[in-house]
């Protein structure tokens, strides 16, 4: 009869450890640990940096509802100077058909002479250009930016850059400087010259635009006025506004370059920097994957050597009735703590690097979180899983071969 007081023994790695030559070949084991740590750190840091670059350089453009808006013109060169460099209907269709362009709208300009003066308060008058674009493309559209036929008051959206320029030369001309809040109270007399004489409108600056460098009037006014004073339907536009998810999208920039379209450099210069940085970071990520693969290969050599040296003992354990599945799991589990520590250390170092980058390079700017992106943490967990699964599969394969 079976002895009564048998405490069921817990079979674990300690039971079989004396029968395995795990302590041998330490150098290759530690080199593979170090390699894995460096590889994982490089990979996590480069992925985090990739996310940072995308985040930082996306925020450089004035956005509306998650979209970037940029204006493009055809590049004027010595060769095409004097030709019609405006956008045809086909050009606009082609732009709209690109996957990275959500919408394109022409900027309609005045086909008649327009002149503005600011009355007695600001003794200043100038010929000027008027433009209009779909309201959807304007960053600041107040509710009163509309015009009905017969209405003599005309709302105007003025470029914030123009106001800045005016304030620079105004003192030298003896003109008063204007603040952003006071500019709305300036009465502008807008004179439109047509074949049947001059028509005056009372203009009011209802908003300033950071995005569009122009003097904008409601679209229906300009369409009407071009017919009325310019005696023409709306002609092709010289400027097109593009609505896109990311103004720095390399595909968009390559397309514009290929079409020889000129784009506001301020809006896209980050695109080129972004492309270069992304290439560098991607290269670093690729190198990191290579380092991880080499480290895992080195560790697999260590495992093969360990199992080869313990072959007789392992064979005897199997002969005695130890299950190959249990042996594989138990031997593989032995290295889970080592892998976990290595990957956690790499994750911690990446977190420190991210914090230092945000605190010291960006001076704690709100633009970037000082914490790791969730995706990077997920990647670390995924790498741990890959290491464990690869390790287990290899050990199982080697043990079943015995």
């Amino acid at each position: 009869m079976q002895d009564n007081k048998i405490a069921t023994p817990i079979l674990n790695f300690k039971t079989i450890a004396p029968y395995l030559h795990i302590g041998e070949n330490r150098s290759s084991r530690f080199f593979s640990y170090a390699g894995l740590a460096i590889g994982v750190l490089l990979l996590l840091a480069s992925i985090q940096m990739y996310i940072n670059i995308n985040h930082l350089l996306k925020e450089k453009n004035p956005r509306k509802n998650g979209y970037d808006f940029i204006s493009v013109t055809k590049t004027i060169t010595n060769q095409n100077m004097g030709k019609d460099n405006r956008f045809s209907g086909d050009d606009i269709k082609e732009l709209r058909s690109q996957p990275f362009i959500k919408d394109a709208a022409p900027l309609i300009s005045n086909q008649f002479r327009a002149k503005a003066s600011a009355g007695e308060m600001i003794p200043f008058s100038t010929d000027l250009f008027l433009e209009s674009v779909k309201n959807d493309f304007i960053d600041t559209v107040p509710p009163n930016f509309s015009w009905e036929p017969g209405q003599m008051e005309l709302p105007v959206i003025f470029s914030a850059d123009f106001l800045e320029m005016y304030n620079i030369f105004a003192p030298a001309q003896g003109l008063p400087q204007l603040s952003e809040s006071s500019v709305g109270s300036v009465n502008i007399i807008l004179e439109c010259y047509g074949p049947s004489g001059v028509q005056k409108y009372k203009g009011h600056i209802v908003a300033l635009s950071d995005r569009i460098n122009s003097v904008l009037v409601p679209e229906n006014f300009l369409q009407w006025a071009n017919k009325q004073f310019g005696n023409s339907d709306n002609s092709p536009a010289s400027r097109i506004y593009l609505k896109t998810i990311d103004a720095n999208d390399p595909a968009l920039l390559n397309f514009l370059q290929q079409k020889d379209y000129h784009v506001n450099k301020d809006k896209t210069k980050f695109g080129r920097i972004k492309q270069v940085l992304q290439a560098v970071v991607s290269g670093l990520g690729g190198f990191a994957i290579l380092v991880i693969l080499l480290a895992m290969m080195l560790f697999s050599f260590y495992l093969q050597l360990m199992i080869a040296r313990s072959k007789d003992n392992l064979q005897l354990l199997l002969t005695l009735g130890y299950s190959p599945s249990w042996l594989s799991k138990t031997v593989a589990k032995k290295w889970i703590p080592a892998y976990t520590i290595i990957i956690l250390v790499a994750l911690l170092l990446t977190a420190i690097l991210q914090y230092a980058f945000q605190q010291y390079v960006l001076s704690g700017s709100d633009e970037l979180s000082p914490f790791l992106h969730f995706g990077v943490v997920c990647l670390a967990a995924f790498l741990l899983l890959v290491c464990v699964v690869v390790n287990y599969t290899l050990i199982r394969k080697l043990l079943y071969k015995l």
Partner: protein
Amino acid sequence: MHIQLENVTPEFLEKEKIEISDTWNNHIIIEQGERIQIIAPSGSGKTSFIHFLYAIRRDYSGNIFINKKNLRSFTAEDISKLRSAKASVIFQDLKLFPDHSVFENINIKRLLDPFHIEARITEMALRLGIKNKLHKLAKTCSYGEQQRVAIIRALQQPFDVLLMDEPFSNLDEANRVKAMDLINEEVEKRNATVILADLKKIELFTADRIINL
């Protein structure tokens, strides 16, 4: 345990030896609790017979059924279960871990599926006269001592069949008696089948059936 051999023939054995054998290429049924002695001259496949039953080798034609299940259909895990809880063996070549102590050699088997408490190892070693060797490396023991280690190791687990391949070949008469007594006690506790293979009849072993290989 019900063991059935159907036309089992080692692939490597000469035709003449197979023709004169009572076992090879025959139908043999061994019932639970039977005590069988296999008598086999050298080179007739005695060790192979034990290895076939213990699923170490498969280089035979025909089929072996363990509890009506063909041994060929056993997975690696099924074989582990067979070896840890159903069948125990004393190998002719002993198969000990030479660089581990006698105690470790016995206990590594006990830990797998313990039939006895650890203290029984010392009791058994005392009975077979190797208590003072428990903490010596197996490779430093004489062959007779190692044989006793292998016997004690085989008795640490539950089993339905005990396979023995020349288990007393290096033991003197006194130690043979002690070993046989211990084996009989343990077999009785488990109501197990015993298959003892040797070159000649072992008088100490009371067999229900003798089969010539």
